[in-house]
């Protein structure tokens, strides 16, 4: 059975709207237009004006309204047409949503989901290509998930909606149309993917790739390339950026002794940086046979031109190059053994 990421998200919304009266969706073009990227297709027809709400193009205002509604007992899902526009509303995400439970000493929790496509799409240039994973995950009080495939998307969004705290769901426009095989259990109305747990997408013993969102795909492709050379790369799909599932990463590194982090966001203070630091601070550090290496988006705003854009994000050969470098002499041995 196959399902696109879009349908995974759409069915997750549908399930949770059906399950809990308090859940509603608001955002630009989510209702009558069926969503700018059609994530909410059919939901307005099914649930009507009360539950699926078109907003004017006023992110700060509608995010604030959504947070207020959550404080007062509803379960809003607030869609940003893309996360780039969440910058207009970021004060409400951080100061109104993330901090309120703590500031109120546990009196007022804020059950809200902020979701939408994050990071680079295709040909949309500098203002529409930013990855917000590291920014949001910097802030306590928020949970941050970043699904890769359909199972992730559906399961994480459903968990996010049921969670009593604010959750940021960073989707990827480029993945919306991709169909992935899914188990029967995934379509179960109570299927959930736990927030804070990573998933091993491909086991391997020689080196670990850890990534989130579309970069997981790059890792899987790179692992396939490396396999041809006799190198078995393990691929970890983070799924959550906050909490970061270090236990899964540590276990993998204890096995492979080599780690490459991969992300499409910018390097400085990024996701990979945090993983490097956590490894350093853990006993697992001593299991490393080589320093951890990062593959990241190039440290520039995203250009429009196709070739430049393609070079702005880590590609398969960047990952294999990094892996070979990290493996050093061992790569040679593995290659030799495979021959």
């Amino acid at each position, binding site marked *: 059975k196959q399902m696109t990421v879009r349908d995974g998200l759409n069915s997750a919304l549908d399930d949770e709207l059906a399950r809990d009266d308090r859940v509603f969706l608001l955002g630009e073009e989510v209702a009558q237009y069926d969503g700018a990227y059609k994530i909410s297709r059919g939901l307005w027809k099914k649930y009507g004006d009360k539950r699926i709400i078109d907003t004017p193009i006023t992110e700060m205002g509608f995010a604030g309204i959504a947070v207020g509604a959550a404080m007062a007992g509803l379960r809003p899902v607030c869609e940003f047409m893309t996360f780039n526009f969440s910058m207009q509303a970021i004060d409400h995400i951080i100061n109104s949503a993330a901090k309120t439970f703590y*500031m109120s000493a546990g009196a007022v929790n804020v059950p809200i989901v902020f979701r939408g496509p994050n990071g680079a799409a295709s040909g949309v240039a500098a203002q529409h290509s930013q990855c917000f994973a590291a920014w949001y995950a910097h802030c306590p009080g928020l949970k941050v998930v970043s699904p890769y495939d359909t199972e992730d998307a559906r399961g994480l969004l459903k968990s996010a909606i049921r969670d009593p705290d604010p959750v940021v769901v960073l989707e990827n426009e480029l993945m919306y149309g991709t169909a992935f095989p899914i188990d029967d259990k995934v379509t179960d109305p109570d299927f959930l993917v736990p927030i804070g747990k990573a998933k091993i997408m491909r086991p391997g013993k020689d080196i670990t790739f850890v990534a989130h969102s579309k970069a997981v795909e790059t890792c899987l492709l790179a692992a396939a390339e490396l396999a041809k050379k006799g190198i078995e790369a393990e691929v970890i799909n983070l799924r959550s950026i906050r909490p970061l599932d270090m236990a899964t990463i540590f276990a993998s590194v204890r096995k492979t002794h080599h780690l490459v982090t991969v992300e499409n966001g910018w390097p400085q203070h990024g996701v990979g940086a945090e993983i490097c630091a956590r490894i350093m601070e853990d006993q697992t550090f001593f299991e490393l046979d080589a320093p951890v290496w990062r593959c990241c988006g190039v440290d520039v705003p995203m250009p429009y031109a196709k070739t430049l854009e393609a070079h702005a994000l880590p590609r398969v050969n960047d990952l294999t190059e990094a892996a070979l470098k990290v493996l050093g002499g061992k790569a040679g041995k593995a290659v030799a053994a495979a021959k």
Partner: protein
Amino acid sequence: YATEATIEVNRPFKLHRLDEGPATTVKLTKDEALKYYTQMQTIRRLETAAGNLYKEKIIRGFCHLYSGQEACAVGMKAAMRDVDNIISAYRVHGWTYLMGVSPIGVLAELTGAQSGCARGKGGSMHMYSPNFFGGNGIVGAQVPLGAGVGLACKYKGNGGMCLALYGDGAANQGQVFEAYNMAYLWKLPVIFVCENNNYGMGTSSERASCNTDYYTRGDALPGIWVDGMDVLAVRSATEFAINYVNTHGPLVMETNTYRYSGHSMSDPGTSYRTREEIQEVRQKRDPITSFKEMCIELGLITTDEVKAIDLKVRKEVDDATAFAKTDAELAVSHLWTDVSSNNLETKIRGTVGYNLDHIQERKGVNH
């Protein structure tokens, strides 16, 4: 001696896009008179106590006093029903008290002690209670939040509404206009209340706003201007507005008022206005004095009753102050208590490592 009186509000309401306004002739019972007077006095004394505690360096950080503006809060509260809600900014000690928190709950929060209504974790700007969605330290942020609370009322169909309060300074914030617009489109039961005390920090409303008739700034939203120094006018306008927003949709209410103190404790409040200006308001428009005198004149309250209330209020606040001064702070472990309602972090990072186990004491009201 009277048990009830009929009163004309002092200054006429001004209306924007409304054919009819609030009642200008209002009834006041003796019980109400006693209650409003007590409430306003308590707020005044609470603020005086807070100011003193600040000067003693027992309250830290920010401390924004509401003295001079008491009639706004007490008048609105008098009109609110159980289903109604309120959210405001950082000038909320009085509101917190009105919304059910004891003077100890307020003052201990200010001293950062464990009996504070936010257990000392929130401080001056972050107090909450049922139907009170808090102070907020970010100018303007509470306005869309309040519209959201109104949305929840309408969604749940509980007949309630939300008062979203903001200052004349905040009134220029873009998100306020965004909230007006959506509240109008969605007919949300929200009263947008601009407490116009003439200054946003050191900036007079004229220097900050292209139009200082704040009650007209909702554009398509109707508006009411009300004398915010007259508790009965505020009550009447709020009663009208509650009815209006539940039947027609949102409305803007401007309460014309004044703050006696500086913006926060670090501001003497005299560089951008004259001492005479402050004195004149105190003498001619003080919301408590004028109400008291009117009630005495009408025979609704006796001077003895006034004295008794004053004494009682003073004692209550003095006791609360004494308590708040000595009440202990939370144990250090509360630093990592109730960070999330559903904690998923294995360990919370302390200053030097992942060595803290999240403690869950509360889950929050929204489960």
